[in-house]
């Protein structure tokens, strides 16, 4: 079944006002272009779920799309601050932001519970932390087995997260949605399986034979995917292993841009609202720019899957 569509179609079909939207990709393969299309389409009142809330989240906040954020790291990588996020949280400027704070593994376990349809997922974090005092999602369970020294043992648990839609970026997929990722694979499979609907944005759509030559490379099978969007360079300023490198300069620049609300809005106007789609954003950046992020070749050696003789 052919699930390919344009980014515009995918966002308009699967992201609605008030939805819970998970955007995953840990530094690698961040679905920036999808975030920009959400901004263009003017979605409101979204709950955004993202482990590392970084530039794309700051941009969606600044565009007024987001009323609630669920995250375990709200910073601009190691390159500085998120200006809009800090204004929203520190001063409710221009409006408040509901923030659910977790740790990384807490978020991972929420996706694991969601993907496995479990009522909760246990983890060995949070004992003694102030986080449970500000996040009622963090609760404790007593193990039904004796602990060390036969004493009862308590662990924290987190609740499942089941986004209305999860959007991820990947290197390639076939038309039916079998998705292959290499390099950092993060928590993408779990985030997709946890969601009601899943949109996979890819650098390229490939023929079935490419995917089927290496089924172990398929991180997400077609049955879990609802839309496949071809969007080359859609992860910028993050990177796509083997396709283009990270735009470290833009990460560093973002602290300055986002610190000044006017500059931030001007950036959004120029690069999001005034570009029709990601293809225009890409061409606006120019060939010379993309050349600076180009990467060379380091091919994996093949393995033999074997064929019956």
């Amino acid at each position, binding site marked *: 079944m052919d699930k390919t569509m344009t980014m515009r179609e995918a966002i308009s079909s699967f992201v609605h006002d008030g939805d819970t939207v998970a955007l995953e990709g*840990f*530094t*690698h393969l961040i679905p920036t272009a999808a975030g920009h299309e959400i901004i263009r389409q003017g979605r409101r009142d979204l709950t955004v779920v993202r482990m*590392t809330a970084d530039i794309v989240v700051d941009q969606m906040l600044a565009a007024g799309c987001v009323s609630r954020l669920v*995250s*375990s*790291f*709200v*910073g601009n*990588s*190691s390159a500085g601050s998120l200006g809009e*996020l*800090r204004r929203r*949280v*520190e001063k409710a400027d221009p409006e408040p932001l509901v923030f659910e*704070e*977790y*740790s*990384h*593994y*807490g978020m*991972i376990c929420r996706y*694991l519970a969601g993907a496995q349809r479990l009522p909760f997922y246990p*983890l*060995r*974090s*949070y*004992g*003694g*932390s*102030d*986080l449970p005092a*500000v996040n009622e999602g963090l609760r*404790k369970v007593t193990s039904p087995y004796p*602990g*060390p020294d036969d004493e009862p*043992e*308590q*662990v*924290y648990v987190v609740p499942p997260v089941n986004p209305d839609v999860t959007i991820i970026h990947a290197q390639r997929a076939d038309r039916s949605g079998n998705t292959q990722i*290499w*390099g*950092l*694979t*993060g*928590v993408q*499979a*779990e985030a997709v399986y946890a969601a009601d609907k899943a949109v996979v944005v890819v650098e390229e759509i490939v023929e079935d034979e490419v995917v089927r030559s290496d089924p172990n490379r398929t991180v997400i099978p077609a049955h879990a995917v609802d839309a496949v969007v071809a969007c080359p360079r859609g992860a910028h300023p993050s*990177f796509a*292993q083997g396709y283009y*490198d*990270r735009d*470290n300069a833009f990460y560093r620049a973002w602290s300055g841009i986002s610190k000044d609300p006017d500059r931030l809005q001007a950036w959004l106007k120029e690069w999001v609202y005034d570009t029709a789609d990601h293809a225009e954003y890409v061409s606006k950046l120019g060939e010379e720019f993309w050349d600076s992020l180009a*990467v060379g070749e*380091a091919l994996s050696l093949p393995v033999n899957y074997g064929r019956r003789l």
Partner: protein
Amino acid sequence: MSTESTVTTETTHPTEMTSSERLSVVASRELAGRRTVFAGIGLPTLAASLAHLTVAPRLEIVYESGVCGAHPSHLPETIADAVLITGAEAVLSMPALFGYVLQGGHIDVGFLGAAQIDKWGNLNTSVIGDWDAPKVRLPGSGGAVEVMANSREVFVVMRRHDPRSFTEKLDFCTTPGPDRALEEGVRPLGTGVTRVITELGILAREGVGEELKLVAVHPGVTVDQVRENTGWDLAVADTVETVQPPSAEELRLLREDVDPDRVYLR
């Protein structure tokens, strides 16, 4: 004294040394004999990479992003840098990295930083001020809560050593050490923070129930200076050592092999 010590007693030039260089070298020595270290980019990577060349030849750096056994062609700029992946021995999903490797108990030393630390090694990386309406919203835990709960021990590197960062009472405890966890009946694997390396010296703590104690100062720093810059009534070891300055060889390796482009040695 071993033959290596001949090298370490060569004249060094501390005045030419940056704070990053000093902290990296001191931290690297603390990794002697360790097998696995969970490190972020920056000082921890420098320390671990230097240790790999000196005191811990079998050291493996595990990155939060999922990379094990990296062999980068260039110094990585982030824990997810593409150069860490190409040529690595393994790249794991985050559930495997956090669940099997970290929570599974495979990490000897975790490196952490913080905005605030208290005498038990509890850390704040969430907010300055009230959590509900903070003066400054900081990035939050990332994986720090898990690194603390599951590493055998934790090293903290803090450039700034002042009473606001070394505080009697954290504004918010993001990342608790084992003492706080045990108080509510949750048992972490590790011993929490065992070393805090700062621009003034080294605080150490051997395990659960102990508070951080000043065990060493950098040359030219006095015990009173450290006390004044610590926000709690600082315990001091019976004998406070003077930190051996970075040797010429340590500095050479750091500058020529680990970070020749001075990405982090600023």
